[in-house]
């Protein structure tokens, strides 16, 4: 069950002299209610992975399934309504005269009986008041607001799975908080996959974490596993969250530390105790 990728590979320009492998042998599953975090350096294939998972790009190898159904053919994107894909800087897609119209675009195309209501609900879910924001032009919004409107546009179609590509890039602290709140709100009814390079944000709440490196899965497992082994980040050219790195650097100096934790309070306690030469 769930959204499953099995042995997925993608080669751009397969068969031509410009062939370039972007993904190889990727396995991934998301169930409804789960949050999976995908990490990886630039060029590791994270964005490609999301596109394949959403049915935008057919894989060159392997298969993508939603429940029992396999995503196939170039029109998979149109036929598969249950997967919502939110690109990087999704506010680039806003086009309508009003926010309400833009968010209602999706449901309207899908033949929803009441697209306006779906739009209003979706706006509320991302923390934007439908009455206040509905009539505004999308081109007058701040970065964080526009981002959330674009997210609402996807949520309005009631997807079972939501895939987000770096949802907090380019936002200030307030915008970031708002988007993360929206992602948490979505997780209840959907399976969520978030591609990010700021692991800090969601690693603590994720069920599972995947590190992609050069198109392959360098590590996959419970998010907790990555917290315990922050050295895995550096192996793939990533910077582990500072909280974990501090604990890791301490052990590198020969200091005895308890199993690593992501929570700042607990980490402070552990580091403090370690400097006194004891345990917390």
């Amino acid at each position, binding site marked *: 069950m769930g959204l499953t990728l099995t042995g997925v590979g993608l080669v751009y320009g397969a068969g031509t002299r410009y062939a370039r492998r972007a993904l190889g042998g990727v396995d991934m599953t998301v169930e409804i209610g789960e949050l999976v975090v995908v990490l990886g350096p630039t060029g590791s294939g994270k964005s490609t992975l999301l596109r394949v998972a959403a049915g935008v790009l057919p894989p060159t190898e392997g298969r993508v399934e939603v429940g029992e159904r396999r995503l196939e053919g170039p029109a998979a994107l149109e036929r598969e309504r249950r997967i919502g894909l939110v690109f990087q800087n999704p506010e680039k897609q806003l086009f309508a005269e009003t926010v309400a119209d833009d968010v209602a675009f999706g449901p309207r195309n899908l033949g929803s009986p009441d697209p306006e209501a779906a739009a209003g609900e979706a706006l509320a879910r991302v923390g934007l008041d439908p009455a206040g924001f509905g009539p505004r032009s999308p081109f007058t919004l701040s970065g964080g607001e526009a981002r959330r409107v674009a997210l609402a546009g996807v949520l309005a179609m009631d997807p079972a799975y939501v895939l987000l590509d770096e949802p907090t890039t*380019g936002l*200030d602290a307030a915008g970031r908080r708002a988007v993360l709140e929206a992602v948490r709100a979505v997780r209840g009814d959907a399976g969520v996959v978030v591609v990010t390079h700021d692991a800090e944000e969601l690693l603590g709440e994720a069920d599972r974490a995947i590190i992609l490196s050069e198109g392959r899965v360098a590590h996959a497992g419970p998010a907790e596993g990555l917290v315990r082994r922050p050295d895995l980040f550096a192996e793939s050219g990533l910077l582990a969250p*500072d909280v974990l790195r501090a604990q890791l650097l*301490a052990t590198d100096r020969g*200091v005895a530390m308890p199993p690593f934790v992501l929570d*700042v309070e607990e980490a*402070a306690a552990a*580091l403090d105790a370690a*400097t006194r030469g004891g345990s917390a």
Partner: protein
Amino acid sequence: MIEFCDVGFAYRDGPAVLSGVSLCIDAGRIVAVAGPNGSGKSTLALLADGLLAPTSGRVLVDGMDVADEATVWNVRARVGLVFQNPDDQIVGSLVEEDTAFGPENLGVSRDEIARRVSESLAAVGLGGLERREPHLLSEGQKQRLAVAGVLAMGVPYVVLDEPTALLDPVGRREFASILCGLARDDRRGVLLVTHRPSEIALADEVVVLGGGTIAWRGEPASLLADTSLMASLDLAESPAGALAALLRARGRAVPSTAQDAESLVNALWA
């Protein structure tokens, strides 16, 4: 020196974006300007380079008024501006062409341009990539290319508007060392618009904007040490900063400017 003397700015029929802002950027110093979105930080950057003229007050660059049409190009030749979006400031089809763009505009001789291009690219760690097409660079490399382009103009002042906003953690780290180099090694005056505590920590002075006016100014160490102050100024703490604050509360001697894991651990086990 770049001087803001009681500067105010508003767009044609709009509300005041900035009012009563006074600050100075001297050679060899980094001044950080922080604040939430909409506080006027970016407008400040554009004013410093004469891309906008203040509606009240004056902005002087080495004594020249940026509002003076006669000298505004001299101002721009002395102030380099690096923007947030890596793509939208790269003009050339090849790395070396883009770096040469500034000196070309200044009418510098061909040999001199070639020398400056290779020096600037080497200074930002892009040596060897002269013939690369910009769209094949990483976002971090593009930002460094933007800095190279500005260095090639031989500017004594560099203004950067949230240069790492669109970079990943590794890219941000690489950029931080370049920032320090600008002021320390080359003795340039640097105005850094940012909301990142790790970048504020690099500065000699920090000015926090709120609603277009200066809400706080002082040393980064004092600002970063006061969590409630930062919150009241709408500045978010970094996780490393939060960790450092908790350790200080437990009596550990961790400076508030320790904004990454390395500095933290070094302070704990000095």
